[in-house]
């Protein structure tokens, strides 16, 4: 069967690609567009390592088909820093040692950014429930949750 | 003479004898002397054995010195699976 021709925006850049019907957005990002920052941990929407923003909405890119994203806006971990400046969440994750192996980190950062955009002053409980869709097996979540709360405080101060 | 104790199953290879007084001054000599006393043990000393000399565990260390009054335990080797710190 012929592949689908799709045009979309990824991290502000216009992209076009061909994909099979069954290919997921994650497959397209990683294999076709070579944006390997989004990770595949489960391919079933249970681990959040492939979290991206689709038109401003947080999604697991393993649950979205590549051919669904025509004309849409996708943001991935690769687009999070601005020029040479890391996003405050990225900076705080490093400062707080909020990552160990780092495989879940892109997903946590994308999800955390989505949270702070919607909720600039979250409680610990709100952070924990928002991030419940992202599995981390190394940190026990402690330093991740602290890093998100601390970043929120920093960003509120402007 | 160093006091040498076999821990666990090793004593099965010596007919149940688990304690020895040996004049070895290194792990290599210790293995040699034990092997001569109990040939069945010799093969098992080459690999998979850790040696505790006066409380400190050595693994894969043939040249480690043994003092005249040392207490030496032969144990199964210890490994693990972990993160990096």
């Amino acid at each position, binding site marked *: 069967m012929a592949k689908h021709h799709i045009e979309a925006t990824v991290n502000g850049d216009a992209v076009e690609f061909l994909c099979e019907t069954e290919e997921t957005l994650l497959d397209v990002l990683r294999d076709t567009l070579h944006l390997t920052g989004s990770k595949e941990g489960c391919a079933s929407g249970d681990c959040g390592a492939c979290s991206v923003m689709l038109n401003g909405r947080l999604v697991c890119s393993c649950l979205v088909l590549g051919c669904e994203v025509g004309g849409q806006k996708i943001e991935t971990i690769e687009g999070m820093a601005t020029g040479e400046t890391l996003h405050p969440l990225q900076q705080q994750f490093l400062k707080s040692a909020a990552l160990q192996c780092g*495989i879940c980190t892109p997903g946590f950062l994308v999800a955390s950014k989505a949270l702070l955009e919607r909720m600039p002053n979250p409680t610990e409980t709100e952070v924990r429930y928002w991030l419940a869709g992202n599995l981390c097996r190394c940190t026990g979540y402690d330093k991740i949750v602290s890093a998100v709360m601390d970043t929120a405080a920093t960003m509120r101060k402007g | 003479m160093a006091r040498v104790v076999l821990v666990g199953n090793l004593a099965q290879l010596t007919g149940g004898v688990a304690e020895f007084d040996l004049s070895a001054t290194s792990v290599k000599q210790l293995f040699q002397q034990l092997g001569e006393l109990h040939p069945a043990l010799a093969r098992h000393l080459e690999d998979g054995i850790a040696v505790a000399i006066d409380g400190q565990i050595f693994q894969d260390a043939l040249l480690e010195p043994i003092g005249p009054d040392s207490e030496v335990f032969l144990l199964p080797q210890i490994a*693990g699976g972990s993160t*990096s710190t």
Partner: protein
Amino acid sequence: MAETMTNGSSQTYVGTRTIRPDGADKVTGRARFGADFNLPGQLIGRVLRSPHPHARIVSIDTSKAEALPGVKAVITRADFADQSSEFIPAGEMMMNYKDVVRNVMAREKALYEGHAVAAVAATSAAIARRALKLIEVKYEVLPHVIDVVEAMQPNAPLLHDDLFTVGVEPKPEKPSNIAKRVEIKQGDVEAGFKKADLVIEREFKTAPVHQGYIEPHAALASVSEDGSTELWCTTQGHFIVRAHCARLLGLDIGKVRVTASEIGGGFGGKTVVYLEPLAIALSKKAKRPVKMVMSREEVFKASGPTSGATVRVKLGATKDGKFVAAFAELKYQAGAFQGSPVQPGVMCAFAPYDIEHVHVIGYDVVSNRPKVAAYRAPGAPISEYAVESVVDEIAKKLELDPIDLRMQNAAHEGTKAAYGPKFGPVGLEETLNAIKKTEHWNAPLRKWQGRGVASGFWFNIGGETCASLTVNEDGTISLMAGTPDIGGLRASLAAVAADELGVPYDKVRPIIGDTGSVGFNFLTGGSRSAFSGSMAIVEAAKQIKAELCARACKLWEATPDQVEFSGGSVRPLGALAEKVKPMSVADFAKVAGKTGGPIGGVGRINAQGAGPSFGTHLVDLEVDPETGRVTVLRYTVAQDAGRALHPAYVEGQFQGGAVQGIGWALNEEYIYGDDGKLQNAGFLDYRMPVASDVPMIDAILVEVANPKHPYGVRGVGETPIVPPLGAIANAMESATGIRFTELPMSPPKVLKALKDKGLSRA
């Protein structure tokens, strides 16, 4: 030459919370993990796996798959030469290549659901998947056995007809599923129990659990026509992968170059090979690079989880709380091939306590499950959970404070460990004291809330390690280590190098070298890599300092006693100080060529003197008496780190281990159907804790220096998963009055127990 002592150098970075050198790559998506490598012309490899837990493989016909356009290679058991039965200490525990070759590719029989039976390489994943369906395997399905106690029965389905129990006299005449019986014995337990005023005996059961690393196994292999082999993979030990692959495929070790990718979690599960030899074999056949990545389902079904087990513990104490005798019998599942972690389980069971009479027996039992791999302090959480539960019960019965009871019996310097030798300085008492001093220990509890405490022990290891330091032309330092960095190793080693050489931390660039770039390294495991790596770095730095002093002597026409290395420079001493100025590492770098060539050092050691690490955990939880659901409310960890090279990453180890332990205790388990098939091979129903399941984990760093390490370091990575199971079970008893003896304490089990006691209105 008056070189300052290692510990005398002015430390500025060790012990501080530096930013990890690999951090920017990891927060921007740049870091390359196992599945992130690709090569031009690469094929995609896929594995055909057995749908049966136990079946004889009568025949495999690959002709239709081979004929499918786009398929470039198909491999089966026929592509791997058999290996002789020979035990080799490799990776974790002992392994036998006769079993390894059968685990990576089934030979006579498929021994578990998911066992690899064939593999294909094709031009696309879709074609590879189609090709798998065209492979015709004729199975003769055999009866299977999963549970360890059932597998030990004389009439149980037999996995290997050449497996005779080792360690029993007389040698058995009939094969069985019991591979090995091990034991340790001290004193006379029967006599010991006679001295006891109270003897508690209980049997416990734990479910098999998986390490649950988020990154699936992945490998990319490229074999050229002359047999040179390159492999990129996610592993805890690329030198071990090289050794295994060379052995299984009959290659010279020198012809195989393995590069460890960034590793997305291992916890022991990435110490062995699965895809790596298959990818190499496929690449060799197809003459093209082959990439293979496991799905999550494959990770659960066909990598190495840890044992499910049955443990019987008997502990005797005098009425004032002195432990006098201890007995335990451990039965651990090994999976399809022998080699469960029962030996360390036996040795660790009573290690935290000073007990005169100890007898522990362990059985290593095969059953139709994937072969277990190491999992964080392999074997210890299971046996210590059982022992800590019984210790708690003794405290209750004798009406003693559970911390005081542990303190009274705690191992300390000079205590003869239950497994033989005497302990050096260890920090169990310090962790108990630290916990007792917390506000947490005395905080009030409400009805249906409970508090539990438990201690834990792990040996820690050293081992072969090679690491190098190179002084670059501009005075910056390249650091190369050879053990994969899972949780901040590069940050710790860079701090040590910076302090040793007196250079700024950000001028040290650490990398993990491939097997062709740095000398042999044992794997990252046994909590060894920061411990041993820092020793190798100290050694490498020592060589550099000696070299710089020697060059200074030549430049200054001085004698060795007129110079010393301190604060990052070689300094002239005495009268010489009036004639010449100190020279920094960077100053020497500028004149390296003119003074003898490149400057560097290589630490090549077999690190010994790893100090055991003890920890004590404290947990509060609440039980919903109507649903059996358990909520962890508060958690505190105190553990002896010896000396924390990087406190934040040490805390991270404590916190991560605690939460893995919470999962093990409450919800994680391999669930098998009567058909012997795994029912929950995914993160939906294999329930690892999510962020909203757990509270903050307070981490208390106890530092009882390890005298055998230049900085006092002890391994810290494994001990943190040992105490949680017991601590949570003890808290459950505190909340409900019920002693739970089976893990996980999942809601259906908890509710049933509450109802049986008339404690639930549900």
